[in-house]
């Protein structure tokens, strides 16, 4: 694929024909700020996190922790917080699907029908970022509140019972997640839809493909890289989120993020860390399976 030429490996091997040593050194020099960044802000914290997850849980922040290779932290975490972990992944999947259902048509409309309003519409998609995440989520408390228009309307329509409510339900949490992460799906998706060559769609229609078939056979596959990137950017942070559950949920909608947050607040660093590692591992596993299934190795 054409994108293959952008792979760093391809460029480097071609360039290394002449004066390989100099080029190699230059490459490492260019890599070093990023590498340093990774070491300081990713490798060190991850190692620390994994180490902390194996400390003796009877210690405390004041008295210090002893490294006892306490693997039982992991079984404890799974036993105690398994339901929250599953719930997190479940909410994140549902929110991601909701984002795709809303975000794909939106990105498609902006890319294909936006005309000269494209940029304006993109700004509108990002506009919510100008206010704080917290404030935006809080405002959903108001929107979904029992005495507000939405609930009143739904009660009047008998979609909700007379005592039915939206706030403090799984629905509210997933709505919050969907709302907060929608732009992360729309932007990369828009970028890859925008790149789709319109002449390919003409060729498809010349070759007996109706507009819908042309979408299914040409536009959709060509937008897969953006769709995969967008869903990852939505799913991963949504699975670790705790704000939406905190502000829009109830004790039965607690997600793993809430538990980790509480454990840290209570000073139980080892359990919090092991739960974090488990969450991380679960996400990496799911993402790996997903990316493989989506066949993006070929498409990106």
């Amino acid at each position: 694929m054409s994108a293959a030429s952008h792979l760093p490996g391809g460029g480097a091997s071609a360039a290394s024909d002449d004066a390989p040593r100099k080029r190699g050194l230059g490459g490492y020099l260019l890599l070093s700020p990023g590498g340093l960044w990774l070491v300081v802000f990713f490798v060190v914290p991850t190692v620390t996190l994994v180490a902390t997850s194996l400390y003796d849980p009877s210690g405390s922040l004041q008295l210090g922790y002893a490294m006892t290779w306490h693997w039982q932290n992991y079984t404890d975490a799974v036993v105690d917080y398994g339901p929250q972990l599953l719930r997190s992944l479940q909410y994140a999947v549902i929110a991601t699907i909701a984002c795709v259902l809303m975000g794909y048509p939106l990105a498609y409309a902006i890319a294909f029908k936006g005309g000269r309003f494209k940029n304006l519409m993109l700004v509108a998609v990002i506009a919510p970022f100008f206010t704080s995440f917290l404030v935006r989520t809080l405002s959903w408390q108001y929107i979904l509140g029992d005495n507000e228009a939405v609930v009143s309307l739904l009660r009047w329509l008998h979609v909700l019972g007379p005592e039915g409510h939206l706030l403090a339900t799984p629905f509210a949490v997933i709505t919050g997640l969907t709302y907060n992460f929608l732009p992360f799906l729309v932007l990369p998706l828009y970028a890859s839809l925008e790149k789709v060559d319109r002449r390919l769609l003409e060729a498809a229609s010349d070759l007996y493909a109706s507009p819908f078939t042309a979408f299914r056979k040409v536009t959709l596959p060509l937008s897969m890289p953006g769709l995969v990137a967008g869903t990852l950017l939505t799913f991963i942070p949504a699975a670790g989120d705790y704000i939406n559950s905190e502000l829009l949920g109830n004790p039965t909608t607690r997600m793993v993020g809430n538990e980790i947050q509480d454990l840290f607040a209570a000073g139980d660093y080892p359990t919090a860390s092991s739960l974090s590692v488990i969450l991380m591992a679960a996400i990496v596993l799911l993402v790996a399976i997903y990316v493989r299934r989506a066949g993006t190795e070929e498409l990106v």
Partner: protein
Amino acid sequence: MSAAAPAGAAPTEGTSAGTDLVLRGLRKSYGSFTAVHDLDLVVPSGSFFALLGPSGCGKTTTLRMVAGLEEPTSGQIMLGGSDVSRLKPYKRPVNTVFQSYALFPHLSIAENVAFGLKRRGKKKVDAEVAAMLELVELSDLAKRRPAQLSGGQQQRVALARALINRPQVLLLDEPLGALDLKLRRQMQLELKHIQTEVGLTFVHVTHDQEEAMTMADTVAVMNKGRIEQMGAPEDLYENPATTFVANFLGQSNLVAGSVVEGGGETVALDVQGTRLTAPRARLATDAPQVWVGVRPEKITLTRAGSPAPSAAAGNLLAGGVVTDISFVGVSTQYVVRMPWGQELSVFLQNTGAHERLVVGDAVDLHWSPDHTFCLDASQDARAGVEEDES
């Protein structure tokens, strides 16, 4: 050649029976700019029709309207007796080989070629695809992606992808432009072969006049959104109706002259005080002022005052001086300056029959009256000169 259209006849009068492609008053405007002006033409079913013209003259626009990718501003497109002007592209029995190829980058070559068949619900396409890839000599590359192919290979995929559908009309937008000469000649033969074999109607757009003339039954020369002239290749070459066609299709010497006597089968012309004659049938105008034209290869040179060779006897322009000679293998091209300052070209075959001339030699130009044509003098004599010499 049996399917050749009646040259230059008013096409709207013809019946549009059978599966002819008929364009009636087809026009396309972009804002105030009109890319195609009220095009009227009939492409007989099963014929090879070439649309020839300089860049930007509206060839692609015309094809796009026939394919349904561009909506005509006005006019009609009839195919097989029914009006398809408002039909969606995917419902028209027409396929296009795009100038930009437009291959699907996410599909393999074989999948690209199978695309049209699959869309029409065909399940077993492998054998057909393989045969088509064989035809365009790409069997080895069936599993590759378009980006892994050279320009010429991509072009052949584009051809295979359209051809496999056996449409009523195949539109080819410069389908051989990226090929080297050898492959191009080979593909020309192949295309012509396929076209006669399957009996498809081909509308072939090209810059390359040689390609148009060797392949097509009918050639239409297009200029600035209009068809200047249409007819069988030989006819167009021998009887250009406008200065544009005279210059764009091959080369022509055009000299200002006037008709002095035009009663009978031949007309007498006055050119810079010399009397020439031409067949009445080759007069493309009734006006007294004309451009007197003769193709460079029809002229014979002799040293000043020598008698004319018998084949080229009749018309004589004397007093020329050779100013340039270029040897191009099969022929030698001379530039001769005439007493009134105009430079004319003369191509002589390198058969050994001609005397060697050098720059500065005084020469006379001889040619047969039968090879003389006359065009309306109100046109620009240089229209269409050196637009494209590929």
